[in-house]
């Protein structure tokens, strides 16, 4: 039982990170129907920005997190403006291929500037650990979970209570109708990229302090897993991405804990195949309505 609870705690920590990344996938998909494969690389760059802020600027955890989120938000908006916006009226496959191109571009540009080697993340948090009935929760995990929850609450507030959030929902439901309300679709799409990328930046810093190591290709696997999480939750659904992220995180740690960690990734992707066969709309996804 203790081991199970321990794995669940570890899974929630990891899952919170997946959830933060999955939110960006799902929001961008919701608004422009693009699987933004460059999203995992924004997360990687977020991890490097946090690394630089802590190592060179000697900043603490929260300032580093904030800087990473702001710079990633800008990066996300720039990517959308340069790479995706000119293709707004092209086929979806053209934009998807562009996204893969942007992903490779970010990975190898980073490799050029920071080198391919793995760097170890500086330790900014105390080594304090919490013992609860045999379950060990360390400081990193507490920070990850608290940060993720705070950001998700903030997101819910933005999406449901602010004008920008309502505009985002309107554009994602029906772009033409939204424009007839006077909503500027382009700037709403930019906001969506900004928020999604800021969340990826936060996830990058969190994973850096959790696993202590970063490298320019670190975004690929978590990016794909967050994509699985978004599909699991129902792509386009914000609560779905949160639940999907936690689900995939817990599943992964349980497979590692009770089975074999070698099979962890295979399991996640097997799961993706199963979802796509059994329930392609995911947990909270809607049936796709074809417009007549």
């Amino acid at each position, binding site marked *: 039982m203790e081991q199970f609870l321990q794995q669940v705690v570890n899974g929630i920590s990891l899952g919170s990170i997946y959830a933060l990344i999955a939110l960006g996938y799902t929001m961008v998909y919701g608004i422009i129907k693009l699987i933004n494969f460059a999203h995992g690389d924004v997360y990687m760059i977020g991890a490097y920005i946090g690394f630089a802020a802590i190592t060179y600027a000697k900043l603490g955890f929260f300032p580093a997190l904030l800087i990473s989120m702001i710079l990633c938000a800008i990066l996300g908006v720039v990517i959308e403006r340069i790479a995706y916006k000119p293709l707004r009226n092209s086929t979806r496959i053209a934009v998807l291929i562009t996204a893969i191109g942007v992903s490779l571009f970010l990975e190898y540009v980073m490799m050029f500037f920071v080198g391919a080697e793995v760097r170890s993340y500086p330790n900014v948090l105390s080594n304090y650990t919490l013992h609860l009935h045999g379950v060990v929760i360390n400081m990193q995990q507490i920070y990850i979970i608290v940060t993720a929850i705070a950001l998700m609450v903030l997101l819910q507030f933005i999406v449901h209570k602010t004008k920008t959030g309502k*505009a985002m*929902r309107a554009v994602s439901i029906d772009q*033409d109708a939204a*424009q*007839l309300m*006077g*909503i500027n679709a382009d700037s709403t799409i930019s906001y969506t990229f900004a928020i999604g990328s800021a969340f990826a930046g936060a996830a990058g810093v969190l994973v850096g302090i959790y696993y202590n190591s970063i490298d320019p290709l670190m975004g690929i696997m978590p990016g794909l897993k967050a994509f699985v999480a978004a599909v699991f939750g129902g792509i386009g659904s914000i609560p779905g991405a949160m639940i999907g992220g936690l689900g995939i995180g817990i599943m992964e740690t349980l497979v590692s804990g009770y089975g074999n960690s070698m099979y962890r990734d295979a399991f996640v992707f097997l799961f993706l195949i199963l979802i796509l066969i059994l329930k392609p709309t995911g947990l909270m996804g809607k049936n796709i309505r074809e417009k007549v």
Partner: protein
Amino acid sequence: MLEIKKLNVYYGVIHALKDVSLTVDEGEIVTLIGANGAGKTTTLRTISGLNKATSGEILLDGEPITHISAPQRVKLGISQSPEGRRIFPEMTVLENLELGAFLRKDKNNIKKDLEAVYERFPILSDRKKQTAGTLSGGEQQMLAISRALMAKPRILLLDEPSMGLAPLLVREIFDIIKDINNAGTTILLVEQNASMALSIAHRAYVLETGSIVMSGTGEELAKSNEIQKAYLGGE
């Protein structure tokens, strides 16, 4: 107030609007009738800025608006209730109405207008917390029109407000349109239900395969033999 001069619109190679010219004066109800595919919806979409004109001009109070964005046109007072209603089904009735007033900053007046909508359509008040997708077709149409009115438009574009509604509701919707016009909003109405549209319109245009083929007062057109034959089912 609204003037369209020699408007041409293409969908790829399809020439959807051919030299369409029309005017709508302040205080009028003008209707645009025609068969399916004649270009009625395209005309309204182009006025709202959702479709781009290849050539021609759209003037609002004499000022060209042909090249400004759709949201800016809303700001200038052109609001549209689109074909098929296009409400936001996953959002609540209240949220839909609030989105109608998206560009407005006058919070107190927005509140008053919301009250006015609820007074006109008590059913929307009863269902304000419900998601709009759960409303019936007629209620959704009322919501779509109310949402367009929340922008406080000077000119309201209505695209097929009677589509898919029971005859009794159709009459109700047309009465509402008249009411809105009496309250001071200019209306450009696109309809397939020609007889109803002509009965409330001050003036009308007939659109056939992208061109205006006839125009006149609502009464004149309702009596015209060609219109009788083509659109009103007369002999």
